[in-house]
Structure formats: C-alpha cells, structure tokens
C-alpha cells in the first residue's frame, strides 16, 4: 500500500480511521484542558505569591525555569515511576510545562502595574487584598491570559508525545505512522494537532481582547 502518494494515503487513512481521529482528538483536548486548568490555578497563585514574597522569586521562577529545560520526553519518563503509565502521567507532565509561562506572566503582569496606581490605592486606604483583586489582577489579566495562551499552544504540541507513554491522543497516529512508515498516518495526527493549536491560539486572542479592561483598550 506504500505505492500511494502521501495525499492518497491521508485520504485512505482518514476514511479508515475517522472514528479513531475523533476519539483521539477528544482525548488530546482533555489532556490539554485538564493540565491547563490545574496549571492555571497553581501558577497564578504562585505568581501572586512571588509578588508578595520577593525572596521566593529566585526559587520559584528559577525552579520552574529548570523544569522547562528538561526535554519533554525525558520529563514524561521521570513521571512514570510516580504516576505509572497513562493519562495521569501525561497530565502531570503537561501541567509542569505550563507552570512557567503562566507564572512568569502573572508575576510580570502584576509588577508592570503602574506603581503610582498602587501608591494611590494604598493612599486611598485600600487593603492589600482589595488592591490585589480590584487593581492588580484586573490590570494584569491581559498579560496573564497571554501566558495561558502560550502554555496552551505549547501543550497541544507536547501532548502528542503523551502517546509514547500510552496516554492516547493525536500522537498515537504520528507514533504509528512512524513505526509503520506510513507518512499519511503521521499527517492524520499532525494536521488535527496543528489545527487545534491554531484554534486555541485564536480563541485565546479573542478572550484576551475581551478580558482587557475597557479603559486600557485602544480606541
């Protein structure tokens, strides 16, 4: 069957495996979604913590920075002894990868709020919590959203590797395509993954625009 051109292979594989593609895409989305939810909650909290306790900045930002440098496949490997093989490990690894961009943007977003605004807020008698929730976070929201977008797009790519540890997702086709030497099968995983990344990118761009406080938008 290898005498078919790559596009013919793709068409053939799509007809053959359409149901599998739908399932794998759904698994893929779930991997990204759950890892992102946990990462967002924890990374935003840590980012806020770092702005309040500057001594932690080196440890936390440095620590997650080091995590980021570990190759994705190696990180998945490290996770296996802890979580075993499967979805849990994949989500844990994707979660760790998402921490840095979100946390760094949370930190930067809050730090970039005009000090004069914060001083005025203090001078008006706002408490530290009021300043955080009514001034710092709303003003940092666009930057935080940008961090989440970056993490999500990277995650869509990294999630294809989850197939190697049996977590499923679109990586299954790529993996299979490589081992069997069917280029069309590789595309069957790669094209939906790429489309998914583009979709998430555009979706977050919309959310970012919507989450930017009105007074900050360019008229």
């Amino acid at each position, binding site marked *: 069957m290898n005498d078919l051109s790559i596009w013919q292979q793709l068409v053939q594989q799509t007809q053959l495996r359409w149901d599998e593609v739908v399932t794998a895409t759904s698994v893929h989305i779930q991997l990204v979604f759950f890892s992102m939810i946990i990462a967002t909650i924890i990374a935003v909290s840590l980012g806020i913590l770092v702005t309040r306790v500057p001594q932690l900045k080196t440890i936390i930002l440095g620590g997650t920075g080091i995590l980021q440098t570990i190759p994705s496949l190696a990180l998945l490997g490290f996770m296996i002894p802890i979580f075993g093989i499967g979805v849990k490990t994949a989500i844990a690894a994707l979660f760790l990868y998402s921490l840095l961009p979100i946390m760094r943007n949370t930190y930067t977003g809050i730090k970039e709020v005009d000090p004069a605004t914060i001083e005025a807020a*203090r001078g008006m008698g706002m408490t530290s919590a009021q300043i955080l929730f009514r001034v710092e976070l709303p003003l940092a929201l666009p930057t935080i959203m940008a961090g989440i977008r970056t993490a999500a797009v990277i995650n869509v790519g990294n999630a294809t590797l989850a197939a190697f540890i049996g977590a499923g997702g679109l990586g299954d086709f790529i993996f299979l395509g490589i081992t069997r030497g069917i280029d069309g099968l590789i595309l069957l995983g790669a094209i939906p993954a790429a489309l998914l990344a583009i979709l998430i990118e555009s979706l977050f761009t919309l959310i970012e625009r919507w989450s930017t406080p009105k*007074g900050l938008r360019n008229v």
Partner: protein
Amino acid sequence: MIIFDHVGKKYEGGFQAVQDVSFQIERGELLVLIGPSGSGKSTTMKMINRIIPHTTGTIRVNGKDNTTYNPSELRRNIGYVIQQVGLFPHYTIAQNIALVPQLKGWNEKAIEERVEELLLLVGLDSELHASRYPKELSGGQQQRVGIARALAAKPDILLMDEPFSALDPITREELQKELLTLHEQLDITIVFVTHDMDEALTMGDRIAIMKDGRLLQLDTPEKLLYEPAHGFVEQFMGKHRIIQNPELMPVTEIMAETVTTAHPNLSPERALSLIRQKKITDLLIVDRQSKLLGAVSAYDLIKKMDHIQTIEEIMTPIQPILTTKATSKDAIILMDEAPSGLIPIIDDTHQLIGLVTRGSLLTAMSSQWTEEVVS
C-alpha cells in the same frame, strides 16, 4: 491638627531620611513642605498617613497618635494626591471618584450625588466626563479627578505630593488658583509638598523648608523672605523673588527713610532754597510730632511765593498715603494715582516715617536684578 513630635525616619539600611522633626500644622492651614530632592519633604508628608512608617517620635493626627489608627481607616479619612495622579485606568472617572466613599460603605445614591458634586467642584462636566476613562483625559483634567477622588469622602486633611509638578505652566497656575479657592471654601487642612519656590510662595499660609532630613525654618512666606533663619534658607528663597512677589515685600523695605520735610510756618523763600538744594519737586509738611499735614509743590511755591507769608497757605493735602502695613505691590499699584509720584508712608499714629517715590521703587526693583547678576 497634625503634630510632629521629634519624628524621625531611618531605613533598615541605615539611611536617615528624616531627623528629629517637630512642628505643628494648624487646622485649616495650607502648609507647604519644600526642599531640594532628598530633603525628606515627601517622606515627612507620607508619614502622616503612614504610607511611610516613622521610626522615632510621635505623629498626632486630630489628637491621636497615628499609629493607634488602623492604617486603612486612617488613610480613608485623609485625602491623598500624588504627582503621577495614579487614577485606576480600568475605572471610569465616576468610579475613580467613588472609590473611597465605596470603601467606607456609603450607599449608592449618596455616592452618586457626591460624584456629581465633586465633578462640579473641580470644574469638570459630569455628562462629558463621568463615564470616560482616565486615558481619555488631559494631564490637567486627570489631576482634577485626582483631587476630586481625594476629597470624595470629605476628609479634613488633604496630603498633596507635588501635585502640579508634571503639568504645563498654564494648567499648573490654573490648578493652583483653583486649589486655593477650594481651600477657602472647604476649611480643610492641606499639606502640600513641592520643590518649586514660586509655587510655595503662591500656595503656602506657612512654608516649611527642609534639607537633609531636617526642618530648617517654618514660617510665613513674608518672614522667610525677610528674616531667613539660615543661610541655606536665604539662598534657597532666592533674592529675585521680590520682583515676582511684590505682595510679599513690605513697603517699608523699599521706602526712603530720609525725607526732606518742613514745618508749616516756614517762609516761602527758605522753602524754595530747601527745594533747590535737595533737588526735589514737592516738600512734605509735618508738624512738631512729625505728623504728616500735607505737601507744597515747587511749582505752586514759585507761582505764589510773593503773595504768602508761610507755606501753610498753599499747602495741599496729599493723596495717596500708605501705612507701614502695606506691601510693595500696593505701592506699585498706587503710584499711578499719585500725581506727584510720591507716596508718603505713615505709621499708626500718623507720623511720617518714609517716602516711596518712582525712583525709590525702581531702585528697589532693579537692585534685585543687580544683586542677582553680581552673585
């Protein structure tokens, strides 16, 4: 009323920003804190609402040590205006102004009314501006909102840290005037930090001059100009300021103290020789107690001298006259109405103590420049 009692601020690194400062700010006063950068003027102001905590001494705000207040509570009752304004960019103008009343738990309707009232007070159109965002306003308009926000919860103390320094000169002058009007209307104590002496002289009921964390002198603008307690104060005030602020210079500073006078029973011949000798155009007439009676002009004297026995017969009352309490500005303005270019200066008992002429006025003014040039 705010009382500083041996207050100091030392940072953890050991830097002494403010050192042993004691003074009192009266209720309803507009006190200006001025000094070069690093003098501790802003720090001193910010210790009042504990934006910067002091490390020694006590600061009493309305009778109570300010460390006994909850800091947020304290700040909500003290208006705060800074140079960079610091409006919340994501709040509308109305929301910005409503902030403190909201924190204090006012009801919606009261807040709404207060916002309207304040926009009017600071000269902004409610319909036009209330629902706008800060970045849509000019710098001057933003600071108007900053002042409205600070006044929103009707504080009796207002702290202002170089509020007009970032504005263009025309807007600055406009806002200075309006703030003075507000200060009169509202019976509010204002502590105003600036590095601009002209601004200090315009705004301050009293001015506190600071340097290297110490308070050098706290006095009225007049006293600072004429009785500087410290060489630095004198230098910092600058000599030329008298020209820009003639209203601060007592008329006694620019008058000639030696005045040629005559008694009313003087003969016209002797009067004429006196006039010629002193090269003057008018002779002031005083009685034996030096009380000013009037004047005789050389012109009248020459015309009528054959028909009179004493100069009293052609003496005319002199107008205008100023008292020793008048300022140089009064003299400058009145000089136009003085037909012979003379303004006699008298004290409470009507005694003549000096004379301002066009010449002495000019000399006083120009000496400010020449001294400036020399130094």
